[in-house]
Every structure is written in C-alpha cells, then in structure tokens.
C-alpha cells in the first residue's frame, strides 16, 4: 500500500514538475550561498573573485588571525587597519587602487566587523568605526558589548522590557565566555545565512505534492472506489499519511543534506565550534551558541517547519477536498509575516517572532530580542517555536486521518 502511495506521488506529472523545480531551486540556493558577497577574494591587483578558489585564498589569508580573540589580537587588528588607511591606495579615488587596499584588509574583515559592532551604539552599525579607534581602545572590546546593551535597555528600550526581561538579557550577555575563539567559519556563515532559501523553496514546491495527496482522490474521482475498499477507511488512509511523512522527510533531508554538503564542501566546514558572536550578525545575539549548534537548530527547525507546513497542507487538502485551496496555505503562512512586519509595532514584532516561518530563519531568529514568559519562565522564541510547531505538526496527522475517514461517508 505504502509503496503504491509513494508511486502515486512520483508518477504524477505535476509532482514531477514540482520535484524538478525543487532541484532547480536547490541549485540556485547553492549558487547564492557560495557566491555570497562575504566569500569574495580580492587579489594584489584589486580584482575580486567568488566561489571555491576565492574561499581557499580567503581562508589562507585569514589564518593569521585564527585563535583566541584577545585584547592583543583586537589591538593588532586596529593597528594594522590604521596602517592601511594611511596608505595612498586606501585614499585613492581610483576604484582599482582602492580595491588593492581593500585586498589588504580582507584577512581581518570578520574581526573588523565585530569591532565596528562593539564600538557602535547598540542599534547602529558604522563600517568605518574602526578607523577612528586606537590600539588602546581594544581593552573595551568585550566590556563594550555589555555596556551597549545596558545603555540601550536603559534608554531606547526602557519601556519595551520588564526588569526581569532586562536582567535575562544581561545575564545571558555576561554568560558569554571570553575571549571568543576566532577561526575560518565562512562555510557555516554562508550556509546559515542562505538556509531559508532551500528550506522555503522545498516547502513551497512540496506543498503542490502534499496538496494533491488527499484531494487527488476527489479530483480524480477515485474516492468512491477508495472508500468502498476493505481498508479504504483505515489502513489505506494511514498508508497515505505514511507516504506523506516519508516523502517530506526524505525530500527534506536529501535537499538539506545536499545543500549543506555542497556549501561546506565548497567553502570549508571548519569553524563549527566557533561562537556565533564572532560574526557580524551574531555579535549581539543573547544565544550563546556555536555555528555548529546553530546549524543543528537550523536543520531541525527547518525539518519541524517542513513537517508543520506540509502536514497542515495535507490536512487542508483532506478537509477541503481541493488541492488549490490546500496549496495556498504554505504560501500565505510564509508571506504573511512580511506583511505583518510592515505594521512595525513591537507587539507585532513579538507575534511575528513566533510565526512558523521563523523555523526557516534560525539565523535571524537568534538575533531577535523577543522574550516570552511561559509558565513563569522567561525564554527566547526558539524553544517555543520548536515545541509548538513540532506538536502541531504531529497533531495534524491524526486529525488528517479522522477528517479524511469522515469524508468517506457522506451524511
């Protein structure tokens, strides 16, 4: 039964087109990740390149700074930067010459980014901030992170959080172990930054498959034979659900695994134990986790998201008996947050932080300063997202079974 249900999925022309599109989108996602702006390498003549070879050269160049990101290292970076900005190449109006100077800076580019973060106000970023620093400022590198947070909480965000919530943030900031360890991590950074692409494409393309799983019986007018069969209101429905679970699971891990292998294979897999605070996006995060841990969150978050979106699509398909209605569900749920975000209120930001699309954007989710109180305990969005949507996804299956079973007997 299960075998034929899977065969039904794979035999359909529409489903084959969806799978073909999935492969295309996978390729696009991989291309975008490995040609990320941060993976460019500028040579001695000021010419830039992207991809595998650029990554190799960049890694080689950045090797000099690998290790604990101590006060001395930060001072050395500031010092080197001061030397470069004093060169005629850096100050040249000619783009080619200025690119040469940029090439000299790329070995400490990552560290420069977080130095800029550390010496700017909490909600601002100034790319040239490092230029006005002296090696003596390096001593404030880590303390500034906490100080900027405290200042922000006492001023701009004064009324946004309760005292307990403010204490929660400060506590997490203080718990970050210093000095951070810096190493090449571009593979993980690019992979995670573009993770939403393959995951969302997967959900959107597979939603066409999931939408037809139950509704297909009605649109093909095969429901009468199906429901009058001995197992038509029992095992056969379970086989359908089983096929859905297997298909979604298989497709997700194949696509995500292939994407991860391709990106890490191209850009390098080192840096899994590096803390996300060593990156521009993660510097302010209150989640004290490594890139490897964030990757696991993104992997299982994406899986939970795919299960939720596609099981919900299956449920709507069984309930509405229409693939067209069912297929709109993931589209609406994925694009709705961007509409709500435009409303711009803090309350709305808190709400959108809990919408299921966040499961595909772990890289962003760890940067948000949203706190929720559950059972008297304060927590970020991640534990809630994982618990709620995994539970809802699993709940969809028995409901789907009951709804489709009922569809077999008209009243």
């Amino acid at each position: 039964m299960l075998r034929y249900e899977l065969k039904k999925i794979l035999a359909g022309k529409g489903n084959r087109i969806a799978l073909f599109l999935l492969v295309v989108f996978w390729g696009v996602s991989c291309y975008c990740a490995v040609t990320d702006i941060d993976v460019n390498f500028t040579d001695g003549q000021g010419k830039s390149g992207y991809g595998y070879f650029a990554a190799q050269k960049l890694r080689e160049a950045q090797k000099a700074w690998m290790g604990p990101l101590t006060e001395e290292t930060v001072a050395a970076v500031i010092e080197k930067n001061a030397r470069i900005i004093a060169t005629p190449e850096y100050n040249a109006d000619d783009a080619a010459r200025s690119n040469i100077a940029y090439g000299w800076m790329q070995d400490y580019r990552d560290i420069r980014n977080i130095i800029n973060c550390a010496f700017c106000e909490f909600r601002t970023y100034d790319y040239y901030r490092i230029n006005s620093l002296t090696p003596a400022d390096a001593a404030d590198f880590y303390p500034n992170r906490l100080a900027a947070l405290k200042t922000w909480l006492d001023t701009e965000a004064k009324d946004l959080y309760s005292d307990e919530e403010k204490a929660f943030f400060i506590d997490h900031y203080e718990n970050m172990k210093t000095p951070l360890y810096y190493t090449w991590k571009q593979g993980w950074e690019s992979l995670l930054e573009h993770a939403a692409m393959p995951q969302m494409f997967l959900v959107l393309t597979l939603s066409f498959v999931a939408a037809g799983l139950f509704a297909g019986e009605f649109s093909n007018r095969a429901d009468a034979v199906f429901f009058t069969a001995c197992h038509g209101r029992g095992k056969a429905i379970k086989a359908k659900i089983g096929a859905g679970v297997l298909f979604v699971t298989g497709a997700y891990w194949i696509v995500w695994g292939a994407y991860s292998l391709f990106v890490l294979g191209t850009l390098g897999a080192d840096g899994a134990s590096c803390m996300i605070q060593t990156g521009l996006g993660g510097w302010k995060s209150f989640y004290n986790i490594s890139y490897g841990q964030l990757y696991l969150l993104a992997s299982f978050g994406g899986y939970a998201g795919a299960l939720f979106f596609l099981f919900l699509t299956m449920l709507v398909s069984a309930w509405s008996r229409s693939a067209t209605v069912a297929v709109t569900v993931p589209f609406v749920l994925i694009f709705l947050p961007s509409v709500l975000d435009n409303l711009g209120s803090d309350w709305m930001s808190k709400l959108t932080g809990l919408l299921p699309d966040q499961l595909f954007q772990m890289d962003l989710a760890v940067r948000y300063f949203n706190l929720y109180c559950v059972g008297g305990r304060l927590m970020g969005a991640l534990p809630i997202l994982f618990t709620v949507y995994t539970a809802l996804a699993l709940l969809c299956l028995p409901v789907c079974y009951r709804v489709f079973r009922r569809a077999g007997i008209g009243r």
Partner: protein
Amino acid sequence: MELRLEHVTKRFLDLTAVSDVSTVLDNGVYGLLGVNGAGKTTLMRMLCTLIRPTAGRILWEGEDIFEMNMRYRKLLGYLPQDFGFYPDFCAQDYLMYIASIKGLRPAVAKARVEELLHRVGLYQVRQKKMKKFSGGMKRRVGIAQAVLNDPKLLILDEPTSGLDPKERIRFRNLIGELSQDRIVLLSTHIVSDVANVAKGIFLMKDGKICHEGSMEKILREAPVKVWCCRVSGKEADACLNRYQVANFKTDDQGCELRILSEEKPTADAIEETPTLEDVFLYYFGEKAGNEDAAL
C-alpha cells in the same frame, strides 16, 4: 446470502432522492432501471456505505452494513458511475494498488490481477498508462477492480454508459460469467443491458421502486398493449401526438409504428408481445432514454 433494505430513505435538504425502499436480494443478477434523477445512484451509494440513509436500514445477512464496517466492505465490489482512477498509473499498478487496499495479500493479488487482466482483455496493455486508454478500456479496468476481491455483492452503476455496442456485448457476457454465487446489482437506463441477464428487475421512479420482480412478472403486470401498424406520413403525426410510440420506421410505403395503447390505434393494427423496453417506455414516458444524472 441476503441483502435486505428496510424502508430506506435518503433526503438532501428538501429533496427526497430515495423514498421508503424495501426489498430483498439474494443470489443472482438484478437490474435497477430508471430515468434521469430516479435515485438509482443514491440508492447504490447507500448500499456501498458511501452515504448513510436518512431513515431505514440496510442489512447483510441480518446485520446492519454500517455497523459491519470493514467486514461488509470486504464482501463488496463497486463500479461507480463516474469511475475515476489515477491517470499516471498503468492498469497493472492500478489494480495492484486497489488489491492492496482491498486487503489481498501481494502474492494472491499478483495472480488475481494477472487473471483479471486476461479476462477483461487488457493483459497486452497492462503497462500502458490509464490516461491513454479508451473509454471502453477504462470501463473494463473498472470492472476488473470491482471483482478483484471476488465480492459477494457486486454493485455496478451504469457500467455500460459510454461503451460501444461491441463493448456492451462483451460486458454482458462478463456479467453472465460473474453472476454465480453472488448478488449483482446493475443500474442502467439502457434496457437491453439487463433484459437478458437479470433474475430480477427494479423499476425506480422519483426515488421509489415502483415495480419489481422477474422480467416475466413485470411484463405480465404492465397494463399496456403493444400494437404494430403501418400508416401514412400524415396519420403517423397524429399517432405520435395521441399515443406513446416505442418505434417509428419510415420506408417507401409509409411508416411502421410500434404503439403502446389500451385501445387498438388503427383498424389494421396487430397486437404484439410487449418487451421490457416497451414497459420501460410505458412507465417512464418521454423521460426514458435521457442521460442519467448522478443523483
């Protein structure tokens, strides 16, 4: 083996599709005849547990079929009027899939599917996608799936609709072969489909079974006489207005009419033995022969 219907009624909002039907069926082929909207499909869908009666009971060997649930469906074979399938499946895969949901073990299913593909003449094209099949071929697959589990109750809703004469003859022969040791209920609005094979006939009108019994009984009880006469073209028009005309044939000498009437329509009219088609026309009048609806 006994299928008993007790005061079965089905209402859809303000429409009564099936009204107080009571009857008993045992081994053999039964024809359910009726026109468009008579309630045949609704009745059959209730017999297949696809819809529940609003009132009344349907019993198999004394047990309510809805309570029997899976045990009843194990005995059931059904070919719906609008037989649907999976267009990208080949005939063999389709039948293997249906065999699996009918609970046949794979080894048994394989042998049974092969046997039935031979029997319905589709073995040579078993690997061809069903969307490429002709209407008749699809219908044959439909019949094969209905009998896959060797059902004790076989329900065929308009099985010959859309078939050409050759396919219909093939189908009638197949029904004859399948009719042993089971109840076959066959709905149609094509009288000749059941005239020669049915043990019992139900005439259904406005949701009720208005007449039932063997063909002989129905013919005997029909209060109608059949006349054959030859008239001129002008007289033929008058007859058409005045009588129910079962057949109208024109040739060089004028028109030959088959008329249903209590009285002798013309002086030289000759009385003939009524056929089931005549009786069907008599009871259902001008509606007879319309395309059936899915009511």
